[in-house]
């Protein structure tokens, strides 16, 4: 293995240095990919990379991206593109157009992890000078991770030519790592160290600590070595400090993100339970209905408007609101309205209802999980620095939760419906005598709470199972958040959700996930002793009645 990689690298260097095309028969080498045996395929991959043919990078990209097929008839290697009546295929080596075939006529060339890693590495090195800065960045990172000594020269050249500052930074880091590991002179190493100690990356940390360990193990070190070891230790401490800092930031982010999930799950309950006093055990099922609505919207898009699939999630938000909201209105009109003033009976009725709804969804959609895919714009991470990467979908959930809360506050504070709603909850009889249709307001309020729960379902479909049990997983937590924050207070729900989320995430590294949750529950129990009506409780006589 060692030897073959070295051979390729030698070949690559040759390729990079001369930019000339070698003469090895690429098509011949590629035939090896048709084998069922992964060892054969790896050999073929290496040969392809070593061929020096300009098309080799293209071929490897196709292989990595899963767009390399063998025709069943002639065993030719082709790439394909979907067209209206099948797949347009092109010979991968000659780029010759081979017409349109059906998917059954092609079999995919499969690769395994080992090949994937190998190809990435090879492609990475081939793309150090690519036009696309994103690819260059990937290439620099790839070199940084594998650190082959032979890449020092090409990397320096690439760095010299690099215009993009972020790519240049990545290249500088990779070069520093290379120099640090393979540096011939102490001066080169020391210089590399200066760059490395500014990084905040666990890889750099492991690199430095490995070196520190190596130096510490030297028997009778010379003064120079001692001094160098001290410098490495200092650099390590510096990186460590930065990593610790980033760790805290990451923790806070994760806490806020967990808090946002809790907030989304609880906010509908803050209305149906907090404002209306219905102990709504079917709240979780409203969330579930929202998630299934997302699934249905996505399936409809997939089948009727595949181009719009990326936007299906956005379309699902109002859809989920409406579907869950209508369910809520129906529930309120048929059951809840007979139970006002009897909060504990609403608990029983809604519990029964939640059983029915779960089974209903199970009957319609089946008991298994449903796939709700994440659009491209929600996947991946936002890399702040080396050691800190925030995932887009979590960021989106935080923003979404904030938006939902804001809209809800707006509806409650600024619309006439919000005014009527508050009037009805504060003094039903008075509101009725002033001409407010209290029945209508009740139905709408419950519908609003359920609809908001439905919107939460859209967000949860991105991070959790879409299954009939989805709601059950969140109901207890939701109640904890609402009660902890103070019943009937949206700000309380916000503060409650965020503080529980952040506390949980700070406990988790020390206690593990389970104990952290237990601690949170015990904390809530104790907290309620201190403030029997939650964080943001109203004080005074009015509360008692």
């Amino acid at each position, binding site marked *: 293995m060692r030897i073959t990689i070295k051979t390729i690298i030698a070949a690559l260097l040759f390729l990079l240095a001369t930019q000339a095309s070698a003469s090895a028969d690429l098509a011949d080498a590629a035939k090896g990919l048709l084998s069922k045996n992964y060892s054969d395929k790896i050999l073929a991959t290496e040969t392809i990379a070593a061929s020096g043919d300009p098309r080799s990078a293209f071929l490897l990209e196709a292989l990595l991206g*899963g767009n390399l097929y063998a025709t069943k008839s002639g065993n030719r290697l082709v790439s394909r593109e979907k067209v209206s009546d099948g797949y347009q295929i092109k010979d991968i080596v000659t780029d010759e157009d081979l017409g349109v075939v059906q998917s059954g006529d092609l079999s995919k060339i*499969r690769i395994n992890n*080992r090949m994937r890693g190998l190809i990435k590495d090879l492609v990475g090195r081939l793309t150090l000078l690519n036009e696309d800065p994103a690819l260059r960045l990937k290439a620099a990172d790839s070199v940084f991770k594998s650190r082959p000594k032979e890449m020092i020269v090409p990397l320096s050249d690439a760095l010299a030519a690099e215009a993009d500052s972020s790519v240049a930074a990545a290249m500088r880091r990779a070069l520093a790592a290379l120099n640090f590991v393979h540096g011939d002179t102490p001066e080169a190493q020391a210089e590399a160290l200066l760059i490395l100690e500014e990084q905040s990356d666990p890889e750099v940390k*492991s690199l430095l600590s490995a070196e520190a360990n190596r130096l510490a193990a030297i028997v009778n070190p010379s003064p120079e070595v001692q001094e160098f070891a001290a410098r490495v230790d200092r650099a390590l401490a510096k990186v460590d400090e930065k990593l610790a800092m980033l760790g805290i930031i990451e923790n806070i982010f994760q806490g806020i*993100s967990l808090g946002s999930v809790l907030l989304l799950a609880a906010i509908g309950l803050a209305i149906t339970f907090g404002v209306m006093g219905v102990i709504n055990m079917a709240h979780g099922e409203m969330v579930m209905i929202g998630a299934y609505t997302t699934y249905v919207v996505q399936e409809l898009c997939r089948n009727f408007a595949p181009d719009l699939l990326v936007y299906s999630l956005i379309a699902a938000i109002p859809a989920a609101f409406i579907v869950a909201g209508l369910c809520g209105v129906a529930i309120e009109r048929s059951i809840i309205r007979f139970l006002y003033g009897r909060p504990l009976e609403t608990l029983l009725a809604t519990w029964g209802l939640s059983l029915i709804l779960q089974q209903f969804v199970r009957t319609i959609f*089946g*008991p298994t*999980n449903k796939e709700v895919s994440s659009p491209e714009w929600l996947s991946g*991470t936002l890399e702040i620095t080396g050691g800190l*990467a925030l995932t887009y979908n979590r960021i989106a959930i935080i923003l979404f939760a904030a938006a939902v809360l804001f809209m809800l506050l707006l509806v409650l504070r600024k619309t006439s419906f919000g005014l009527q709603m508050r009037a009805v909850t504060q003094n039903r009889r008075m509101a009725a005598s002033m001409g407010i249709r209290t029945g209508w307001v009740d139905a709408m309020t419950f519908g609003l709470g359920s609809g908001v729960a439905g919107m939460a379902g859209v967000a949860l479909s991105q991070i959790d199972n879409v299954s009939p049990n989805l709601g059950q997983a969140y109901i207890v937590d939701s109640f904890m958040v609402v009660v902890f924050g103070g019943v009937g207070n949206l700000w309380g729900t916000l503060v409650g959700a965020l503080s529980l989320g952040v506390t949980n995430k700070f406990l988790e590294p020390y206690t593990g996930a389970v104990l952290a949750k237990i601690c949170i529950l015990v904390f809530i129990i104790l907290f309620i002793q201190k403030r029997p009506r939650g964080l943001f409780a109203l004080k005074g006589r009015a509360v008692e009645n």
Partner: protein
Amino acid sequence: MLGLRKVAGVITGAAMLATSAFGLGTAQAADDVIKVGVLHSLSGTMAISETTLKDAVLMMVDDLNKNGGLLGKKVEAVVVDPASNWPLFAEKARELIEVDKVDVVFGCWTSVSRKSVLPVFEELNSMLFYPVQYEGEESSRNVFYTGAAPNQQAIPAVEYLMSEEGGNVKRWVLAGTDYVYPRTTNKILESFLKSKGVAEEDIMINYTPFGHSDWQTIVSDIKKFGSEGKKTAVVSTINGDANVPFYKELGNQGIDAADIPVVAFSVGEEELAGLDTAPLVGHLAAWNYFMSVESEENDAFIKQWKAFIGDDKRVTNDPMEATYIGFKMWTQAVEQAGTTDVDAVRQAMYGQKVKNLTGGTAVMNTNHHLSKPVLIGEIQDNGQIETVWRTEDVVVGDAWSDYIPESAKLIADWTYPYVCGGCEKPMY
């Protein structure tokens, strides 16, 4: 004394009601019917996995009846719903055996449900086919285990990852749900890894509760653990519902299979059907069956399943194959024994052979575990798992692991001279 007469009246009424309501009147076992009990949760947390197996049994019963039944009799499936409630499993098992007088039961998924029904089957000397991969450390006279034992899943998977082919993994994260199957598997793996020279600090063990949904911290810990220079892999024994959020988080945090591969023992096609697998391509699973394996038997099975369920998108998975093999073996054993009598069928089960859906032949051993091939596959973007490695031959399922000192000395063999599920020397 008005009271007493009233009481007597109420009691008589209640007794009549109970008798009729519990269906005791219908308990006379019709001689022309063979009854098969199906004990899988159709509601509650486990319904998501178990309902499929109920349908699989129904499909095979249906198929058997179409082909003339068994011993010339019609086969009837008796389905009950133990509702993911463990004591209810025991109650329903008793009901199936005592009231419905079933001849055999196919059922259970979780270890705790099996533990719950075990005394019932032993007391009433009935027969249970258990189709799910499990922790081992058990061999009951009344249970046939058609899922994988740890040595048929975990060890080959780790060996594969340690090999050149699998990526030369040096560091290991053992992540699991906190219950007995992951605990056992990880215990076995830990001792196996140490025997292969893996250092203590290169093994990270992490347990999470059932249905854990916030994986941010753990996934970023794994990411950090994996970025410390050595090639790292995650061995996941995360169970059920918790997998979807786990994989979603993996995908979102950009953990690439080429950097840190995750090999799972509880994730099959069914679980993947609830996921967008594009970001997961290359992560691994170890099973005895993959839907993607091309063989005549498998193609027929898939076709039959899709037709039965009426959904072209439904997938098949390993516990379904285990159910299939168990059911086939049982029908063969009944035919061989010429009766559904539990003791006779049990004797006929030993050495019973059924063709695997993935090729080769499964054999029932005298320790009530199967010999089956082990397959390791990589997740594809279409939700399928493509085989990348398989054992040359079948692997014999071990009831007692060799890597746990207390159990290494135990032997399960239900034939003469041992006749026991766990003893150090022969009974006779």
